[in-house]
């Protein structure tokens, strides 16, 4: 923007007295006003509201002290696990690649999937079920959790009293998903004539894109995005525009990958091989996944999101300089240690974006806006703890018989639905359904819809679940979600269930 401004200032018709007015006018006609509005809107969506001036920075990350402590201990466990992997395998956390190896990697950059390194000794640092155990043991020391069952006992797995929305509040929040509003995912099915909703919706979508207005796009996408417009709409909402600087930045990250080899790379390889490569929908994108995730690990701009993330980036010291602050660095450079299933955050995006630097930018923005909340302990309404509590509360309140039955047979519902929510349902739903779901995540700027969908899935399969007698059988009933249609489930659960 600065460059454009400088260029326009050199035009002879700009006079100094009217500089302010000329700039405003220039903004309007060149479309930069819109871009500025979009940038401001994007900042407002991402950053939390300014807090009290006396509040320390850790309060902005997470206001509740016991949650901060729990996140700290969890992180320490992850660090210990990674360190022990290093010492066992005698592999350094990071090393500079020899020149020959650098050339080799550069040559096969576009086909890293063909590489078959020996990853048998590597294991993921943690899996979602390990994280669930930590959340189950989360306790507020000031909360009265009596031994005997009373009104204050939580019947589910989560034992912290966070504020979650109930169905009337969810109905208000998700009002555009109501029965009387057209939805893509419902009103675009083959039986419905397109003149009723779909054609008009597509037309409005094209208009929104022409206006390049982020806020309008976010409102529009609550009713779903037409497939043809989705890539551009998401980019507009996330305020991503591929400038030459961004492509250059991506190339710089690629260079960093070539030059330095990280232990985290092997974890990424292993994760991709275990998850995305085995998935019918995503195995074709294996090479893209490496290109995005390896670069993601080197991106120091991601460190910025730790200001509002309850997690903190791991620290290390250059070899031989332990304790010297000038040689302290973050590891990995972006501060994010991938866990089992991490690559599934990227995989669905490969359907929308084929240019690596754009795919990368979209993923990075999705991560620092949404996905980081799914694997850190915080009290945020979109944090995984709140989502788990919301799921359990919805199920208990509206399907009490089912909840009680599952609890009695030792199949706490959260044990089954946790993995869905941590991955934002990626790899569990059919891709078109998943993208419709992620449309709404963007549209409402909240992950609460994941908890509502999880409860809706249980409600849908309630009859079968009432007949099972073990956790394994319950898992089997809910093993395959690939035939589910997301929007009807959500609509019925929120707006059409008799309470």
């Amino acid at each position, binding site marked *: 923007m600065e460059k454009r401004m400088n260029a326009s200032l050199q035009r002879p018709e700009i006079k*100094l*007295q009217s*500089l302010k007015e000329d700039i405003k006018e220039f903004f309007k006609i060149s479309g930069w006003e819109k871009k500025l509005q979009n940038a401001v809107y994007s900042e407002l969506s991402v950053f939390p509201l300014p*807090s*009290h001036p*006396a*509040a320390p920075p850790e*309060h902005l990350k997470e*206001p*509740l*002290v016991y949650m901060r402590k729990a996140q700290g201990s969890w992180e*320490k466990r992850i*660090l*210990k696990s*990674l*360190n022990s992997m*290093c*010492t066992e395998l005698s592999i*350094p*956390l*990071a*090393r*500079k690649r020899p020149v020959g190896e650098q050339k080799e990697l550069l040559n096969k950059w576009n086909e890293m999937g063909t590489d078959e390194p020996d990853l048998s000794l590597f294991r993921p640092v943690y899996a979602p079920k390990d994280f669930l155990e930590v959340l189950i043991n989360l306790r*507020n*020391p*000031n*909360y*009265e959790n009596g031994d005997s069952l009373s009104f*204050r006992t939580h019947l589910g797995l989560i034992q*912290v*009293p*966070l*504020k979650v929305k109930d169905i009337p509040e969810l109905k208000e929040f998700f009002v555009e998903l109501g029965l009387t509003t057209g939805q893509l995912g419902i009103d675009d099915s083959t039986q419905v004539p397109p003149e009723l909703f779909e054609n008009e919706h597509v037309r409005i979508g094209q208009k929104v894109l022409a206006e390049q207005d982020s806020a309008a796009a976010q409102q529009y996408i609550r009713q779903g995005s037409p497939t043809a417009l989705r890539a551009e709409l998401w980019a507009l909402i996330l305020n991503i525009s591929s400038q030459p600087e961004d492509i250059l*930045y991506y190339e*710089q*990250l690629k260079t*960093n990958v070539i030059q*330095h080899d990280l232990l985290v790379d092997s974890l990424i390889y292993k994760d991709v091989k275990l998850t995305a490569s085995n998935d019918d929908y995503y195995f074709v994108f294996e090479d893209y996944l490496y290109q995005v995730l390896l670069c993601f690990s*080197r*991106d*120091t*701009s991601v460190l910025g999101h730790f200001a509002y993330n309850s997690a903190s980036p*791991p*620290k*290390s*010291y*250059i*070899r031989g300089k*332990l304790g010297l602050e*000038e*040689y*302290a*660095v*973050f*590891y990995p*450079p972006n501060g994010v240690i991938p866990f089992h299933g991490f690559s599934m955050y990227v995989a669905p995006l490969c359907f929308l974006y084929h240019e690596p630097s754009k795919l990368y930018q979209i993923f990075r923005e999705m991560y620092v806006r949404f996905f980081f909340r799914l694997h850190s302990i915080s*009290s945020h309404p979109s944090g995984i703890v709140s989502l788990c509590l919301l799921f359990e509360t919805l199920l208990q309140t509206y399907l009490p018989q089912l909840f009680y039955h599952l609890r009695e047979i030792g199949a706490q519902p959260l044990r089954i639905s946790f993995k869905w929510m941590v991955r934002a349902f990626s790899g569990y739903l059919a891709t078109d359904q998943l993208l419709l779901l992620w449309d709404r995540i963007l549209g409402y700027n909240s992950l609460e819809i994941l908890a509502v969908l999880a409860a809706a899935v249980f409600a849908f399969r309630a009859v079968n679940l009432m007949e099972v007698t073990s956790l394994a059988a319950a898992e089997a009933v809910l093993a395959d979600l690939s035939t589910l249609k997301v929007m009807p489930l959500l609509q019925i659960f929120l707006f059409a269930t008799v309470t």
Partner: protein
Amino acid sequence: MSRVSVPCHVKGTVALQVGDVRTSQGRPGVLVIDVTFPSVAPFELQEIMFKNYYTAFLSIRVRQHTSTHTPPKWVTCLRDYCLMPDPHSEEGAQEYISLFKHQVSWDSAWLGKSREGLTGGLGIGLGYLEGRGEAGLAWACTLEGLLGFFFSFLKAWGGSILAHCWLGGSWAVSLGLAGSLCVCVCVYLCQMLCDMAKVLELRLILRQPSPLWVSFTVEELQIYQQGPKSPSMTFPKWLSHPVPCEQPAPLIEGLPDPSRVSSEVQQMWALTEMIRASHTSTRIGRFDVDGCYDLNLLSYT
């Protein structure tokens, strides 16, 4: 506005409970904290700041110095200020709060949803539209509702607030104008129900009706009074009374007006200064130290 911290002595919390504290099984839902100012003369309180710890409602009583003849009395200056919207859940449980002497947040009244703006109170809103011969009387049981009504009333008639002023005590009046000929008056109570001058002692009454919490209190309590006004400076005589300038020499033909040129040059200079002062915020993205990123193990500290 500058503020100065007042050294205070916070006495231990006293639980108010019916019956014997030791044998009774229930938990006290009301705590009282006394705050004294042993080394300070009666002062005008500007701000109270603290960190909440699971307190749901806060009331504050203040003992003020009146005249030398009458003994100082206790006056309630804040009643049931809500710190936790839902006492059974964690929302607002560990937040930092500031309470000001006179604080009316217009935005909060407009949106009706701000925490720090207004406390509950009774008020009467009176609107009379001469041009249209209508009168509106509003009775709102919350301050937010009242002011919200008042503003929507004004807005509906295309009006705006003209002025608002403090009437003294805890009352303020707001004057709005709508249309060509109408006056709307809104009289209301502000955050602190009383004047905070000459404070001798404070008493904070904490309430937590929910039995879910083991304990509740407020932490990091700090009291502020108004800081000294910036000292008035005496300007040299020639600054405050500049000598009237002489008539400038008549303009030579063809040259631009010197005053215009000087203002333009000033603006250009300001621009160059701004550009020089602003640092580029583009990150370089280096994660290594001098090209070296050889790491052995992660650090736990």
